[in-house]
């Protein structure tokens, strides 16, 4: 499988505070790669750097051969990012929000319509798409945003706590959508506190703490290595 994303010695400081102290990982086409770690470990900072929101203080990030520092615009054309607490424009109707976002990626009106149709199928919000986003429940907003992130079929989607705050049913639906799109060749970089979700979704997992990757591998591989019944125990063992 060809490598989509290559992260080498990534560092990030906020003043004197070192959020990332040199992390390395790679993601292949269609692979779901998960970052797990406690609050303040550096997960969101990593995701924000890869999504071009933040500039790294050191190291190198290459996406589809484009250097993140030199060509962030090229990277933005091929990725999508779903922040943990993202929102959509409350005064826009769901469908209009999708149209607005599609217009940044589509060259023609036909192409934009095709993208929106795909988003409608992903979101499964039916007639609610004609209502204003301000009237949506948290689950509906999350589905809309996930549809926005996947509708353009980006080379990679970056999902920060994709099921955060969702109920069981909505969480299951979101996970299934992610899995389905990964099978179609979209790479996924995600972070989550939910170890069950990570085990269900990810092909490989990186354990991150204090700005460093402690270990990485498949869920099963890590469980075997640390002789742990689940990823929670794996993480605790890795911290020791």
């Amino acid at each position, binding site marked *: 499988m060809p490598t989509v994303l290559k992260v080498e010695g990534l560092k990030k400081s906020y003043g004197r505070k070192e959020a990332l102290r040199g992390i390395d990982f790679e993601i292949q086409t269609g692979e779901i790669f998960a970052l797990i770690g406690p609050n303040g470990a550096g997960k969101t900072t990593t995701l924000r750097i890869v999504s071009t929101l933040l500039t790294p203080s050191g190291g190198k990030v290459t996406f589809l051969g484009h250097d993140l520092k030199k060509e962030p615009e090229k990277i933005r054309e091929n990725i999508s990012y779903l*922040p943990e607490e993202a929102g959509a424009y409350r005064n826009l109707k769901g469908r209009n929000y999708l149209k607005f976002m599609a217009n940044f990626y589509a060259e023609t009106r036909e192409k934009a319509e095709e993208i929106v149709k795909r988003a409608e199928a992903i979101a499964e919000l039916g007639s609610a798409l004609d209502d204003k986003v301000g009237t949506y429940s948290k689950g509906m907003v999350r589905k809309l945003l996930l549809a926005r992130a996947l509708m353009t079929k980006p080379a990679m989607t970056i999902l920060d706590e994709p099921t955060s705050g969702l109920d069981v049913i909505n969480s299951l639906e979101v996970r299934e959508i992610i899995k389905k799109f990964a099978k179609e060749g979209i790479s996924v970089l995600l972070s989550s506190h939910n170890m069950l979700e990570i085990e269900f979704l990810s092909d490989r997992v990186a354990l991150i703490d204090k700005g460093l990757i402690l270990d990485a591998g498949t869920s099963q591989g890590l469980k075997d290595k640390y002789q742990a019944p689940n990823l929670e125990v794996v993480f605790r063992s890795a911290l020791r």
Partner: protein
Amino acid sequence: MKKFTNLLLKEIRDLVNKQLIISLLMMMAIFYFIGVMAKTEMKKAAGTQKISVMDLDQSDLSRGLAGSLKTANFEIEWSQGKDPEAAVQAAKQGDTYLLLVIPQGFGESIVRLEPKEISTYTFLRSFSIGGIRKSEILKAVITATNAYLSNDVLKKKVPDVPPDILRSPIKSKDYVIVKDRMAEGSASAISGMVYSQSVIIPIILFMIIMYSSQMVISAIAMEKQNKTLETLLTVPIPRTAIATTKMLAAGIVGLLSAAIYMIGMKSYMGGMMGNIRANASMNAVIKQLGLTLTGNGYVLLGIALFFAILCGLAMATILGVLAEDFRSAQTLMLPLMLMILIPYLLSFFADVNSLPLPVRLLILAIPFSHPFLATPNIMLGHYSAVLYGILYMAVVFFVLVFIAARIFSTDRVLTMKLRWGKKKVVF
């Protein structure tokens, strides 16, 4: 360009919401209503006035005075009885604003040149301009009657000399000079008239600058509060375009709103000033002195306003980035508001050129001072001052845009947050 238009249209749609349209329409309606009311009041003041008159003298002279009141468009309501106190009580009960009491022996006392005092009572039932004008008209009638009577006496005493020369031996003609133009007229009257005609301009300037700055700072703060900014920053559009579209949309909507406000204000001011016919000759003097805004003057004022709006938008963009949410954005408007408010208030009460040098420099350093100073400077022909002001604002604008662009193209757009003067970073 397609992406830029897509974003710009979204920004305009965000700003032009139901609340904005309703508030603009309401404002128009309020201005129009006040204008109509003011017009009616002014018409009333200029029309027939009611006056109660108690004539205890019943002489030719007292009747002559009453006749002068009729000529001055007063409708006389004769007060019966012999007691001025009763006349006051009666007038108080009615709807008249004025009462004139002519004492017994008034005519004779004038002939003897030992004049008895007449009494005028004004019932201050409101502070409206119309109410005040009524007593002014009565005073004018008494002054005219005084002139008539004194002329009469003087003619009898010194028949060979015109009474006017006896009363005012020193004749004067007042001239006002503005640059190379000169016209006959009173400086205070001309200044008053120019002030009343241009008083609307700083109000409009204030509203446009405040309004557009408020919109852009709120737009950025709302993006942060609704957590939409991060997503927007990862779409394939240059970061500078995000800042530019916000400024442009606020500028367009700000100008449109100002135009609507202006129509409403014009109707209001038209109501206030429209009926004063005496202004016609004064207007001619003002035109003769060039104290009006010509086409070129309006263009210069427009350019000054345009750059002031741009400075306001750029400054608001930077402040918007510092805001955490909509509420903190309102607090961050304070420095901007002060910078607009200071020259705005000064434009009403002071001449910047007469201020001490350090204060003057401070005022001139505020970019928003220049559109407020532009109107008097254009009228007085100080074009270089206006052009320097525009140049200064252009420099300030480019510096601010550079700073705003730098902020938007770096992490600072997400990490800068102002909390009581501390810079806070987000992990």
